[in-house]
């Protein structure tokens, strides 16, 4: 079997190539990044397929036994994210060939981001997770600042300051977890934490969740997000919208499910549900009040990640499957939406909700694509956006958690209002219908949007599949807890 370390090592080592090669020969960055990402994607799909078909794929780096060494694990929970990262990276790369920045150093950052995010998904060591969180963070700060506008530098600095505080709070939590138990391995922590001193276990949980909530951008820890996504080049905004918060939310879910059950569950659940509710309400409100479509989409993420957290709090197998589906689906839909925003800014020079008026007539196909993505974000069947929310709501009802179910329903109504406002402008608004295109887009840009739209529809039926994959993993985690042993 392939060593999962390669999924991380290939893009990280490969990142050395574009920055150097482009200095020797211009414009070699993009093809080199493509080559590295193709290799990584093949490995990712291969390992993920093996993990989903049979047993989880695991390794101990350098052969140091668990729980002393660093373990890597591709199971049904991490496999979908490993594949998502690889494929989203390829799709957005197709877009950036014409639509994005072209310097070699930029493509080095691109590969470092992908390597870092993959590392967060596969590691089972809480400190190792911090290192990869910082690689992906640092790469994203640089990529946001790539945009020419001066505001991009300030947005990137804000992203850096807030993001580093988030990562450092997480590190502080790792410190508490280590002091309380003497281990950094997730499975060993799960066995040791409930027996540890309560204040220490609670501090570890609180700080790690707080730090990751900053990275996920739950309200009121979201302030970096709208500025960064609005200021970033469109390809970068799409890539970050697809992956950055998604992977942080995966890490949050992994910790809540695989490390912290048994630590003050009632208090933690209430706090997380409150955070999720605040994100759903405030995110929707801020989205409704946004003039810029990019900001609207960024604020919409607050609400969408609030729903994902609801699923992790409910934590029945159905709800967890719903959260995973919604994370993947949201990544596809939100990335696609940002690609459309970038494409329309290029072809029609439009950026605000007002400027989108009448676009359906001027650019019918792209508008139709955006409509599908927006309906998905609202949660209309048969899109993947519906599938995720449906499973979370179903899980909430099964668990008898009516608050959680009501939150999911409310988020759909809110989405209808703030995204419906954009769609209404595009389809019935009176715009400057005579204005012709102001620029051209490349086939790669259209192709990337088309892939996102098709995936939004095609993934709509994926719910039962994911639930089936996850069942053995969740059983294994529960069995491990019941026996107090390392699964």
């Amino acid at each position, binding site marked *: 079997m392939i*060593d999962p*370390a*390669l999924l991380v*090592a290939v893009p*990280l*080592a490969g*990142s*050395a*190539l574009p*920055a*150097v090669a482009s*200095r*020797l020969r211009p414009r070699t960055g993009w093809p080199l990044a493509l080559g590295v990402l193709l290799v990584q994607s093949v490995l990712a799909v291969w390992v993920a397929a093996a993990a989903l078909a049979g047993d989880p794929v695991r*390794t*101990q*780096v*350098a*052969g140091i036994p668990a729980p002393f060494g660093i373990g890597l694990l591709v199971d049904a929970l991490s496999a979908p994210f490993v594949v998502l990262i690889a494929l989203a990276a390829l799709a957005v790369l197709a877009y950036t060939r014409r639509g994005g920045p072209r310097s070699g150093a930029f493509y080095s950052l691109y590969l470092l981001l992908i390597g870092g995010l993959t590392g967060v998904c596969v590691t089972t060591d809480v400190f190792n997770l911090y290192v990869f969180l910082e690689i992906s963070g640092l790469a994203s700060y640089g990529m946001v600042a790539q945009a020419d506008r001066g505001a991009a530098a300030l947005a990137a600095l804000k992203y850096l300051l807030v993001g580093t505080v988030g990562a450092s709070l997480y590190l502080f939590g790792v410190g508490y977890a280590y002091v309380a138990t003497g281990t950094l391995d997730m499975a060993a922590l799960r066995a040791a934490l409930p027996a540890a001193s309560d204040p220490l276990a609670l501090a570890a949980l609180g700080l790690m969740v707080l730090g990751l909530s900053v990275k996920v951008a739950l309200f009121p820890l979201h302030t970096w997000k709208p500025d960064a996504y609005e200021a970033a080049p469109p390809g970068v905004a799409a890539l970050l919208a697809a992956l950055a918060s998604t992977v942080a939310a995966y890490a949050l879910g992994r910790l809540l499910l695989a490390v912290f059950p048994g630590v003050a569950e009632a208090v933690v659940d209430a706090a997380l549900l409150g955070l999720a509710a605040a994100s759903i309400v405030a995110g929707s409100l801020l989205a409704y009040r946004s003039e810029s479509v990019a900001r609207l989409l960024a604020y919409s993420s607050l609400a969408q990640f609030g729903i994902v957290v609801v699923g992790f709090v409910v934590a029945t197998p159905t709800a967890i499957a719903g959260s995973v589906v919604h994370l993947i689906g949201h990544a596809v839909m939100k990335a696609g939406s940002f690609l459309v925003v970038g494409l329309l800014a290029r072809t029609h020079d439009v950026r605000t909700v007002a400027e989108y008026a009448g676009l359906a007539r001027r650019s019918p196909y792209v508008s139709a694509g955006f409509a599908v993505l927006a309906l998905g974000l609202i949660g209309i069947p048969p899109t993947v956006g519906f599938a995720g929310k449906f499973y979370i709501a179903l899980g909430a009802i099964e668990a008898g958690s009516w608050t959680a179910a009501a939150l999911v329903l409310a988020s759909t109504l809110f989405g209808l209002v703030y995204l419906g406002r954009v769609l209404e402008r595009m389809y019935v608004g009176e715009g400057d219908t005579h204005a012709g295109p102001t620029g051209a887009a490349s086939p790669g840009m259209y192709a990337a949007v088309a892939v996102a739209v098709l995936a939004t529809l095609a993934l709509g039926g994926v719910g039962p599949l994911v639930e089936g994959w996850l069942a053995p993993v969740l059983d294994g985690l529960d069995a491990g807890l019941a026996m107090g042993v390392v699964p």
Partner: protein
Amino acid sequence: MKPYHESPVVTHTVRVVAPFILTFGLFTLLHGTKSVGGGFQGGVIVASVAVLFAFAFGVSQTEATLPGVRIVAFAALGLLSFAAVAGAALVVGRPFLDTTAFGVSPVYPVEVIEVAIGVTVASVVTGLFFELARADDA
């Protein structure tokens, strides 16, 4: 920025002290398995020599002898060397980064990795300093 004036006291001091710091840095870099030190510590100390020269002789003059292409290439070289040692274990069927995979004492691959770390750290720290200190028009 004000035009830079060299001070003979400073430049002479740097000339005398630099070889010692460089030696200390390399010693620290190579001696990490036996005592305090390692790639990071040694790499930073080696880089501090370049920073010292920049403070003494001016940034642009010092940088002229250290072009940016080479700095990034050296940084990449260290990263790739580390990856090569780590990946070589896979070739002989052992886990990634297994230092016992090569039929020799693990000290040797560890030393290679330390040097790789040192090369990357020294070149990156030097590069960062010049990149931040250089005037925009350069």
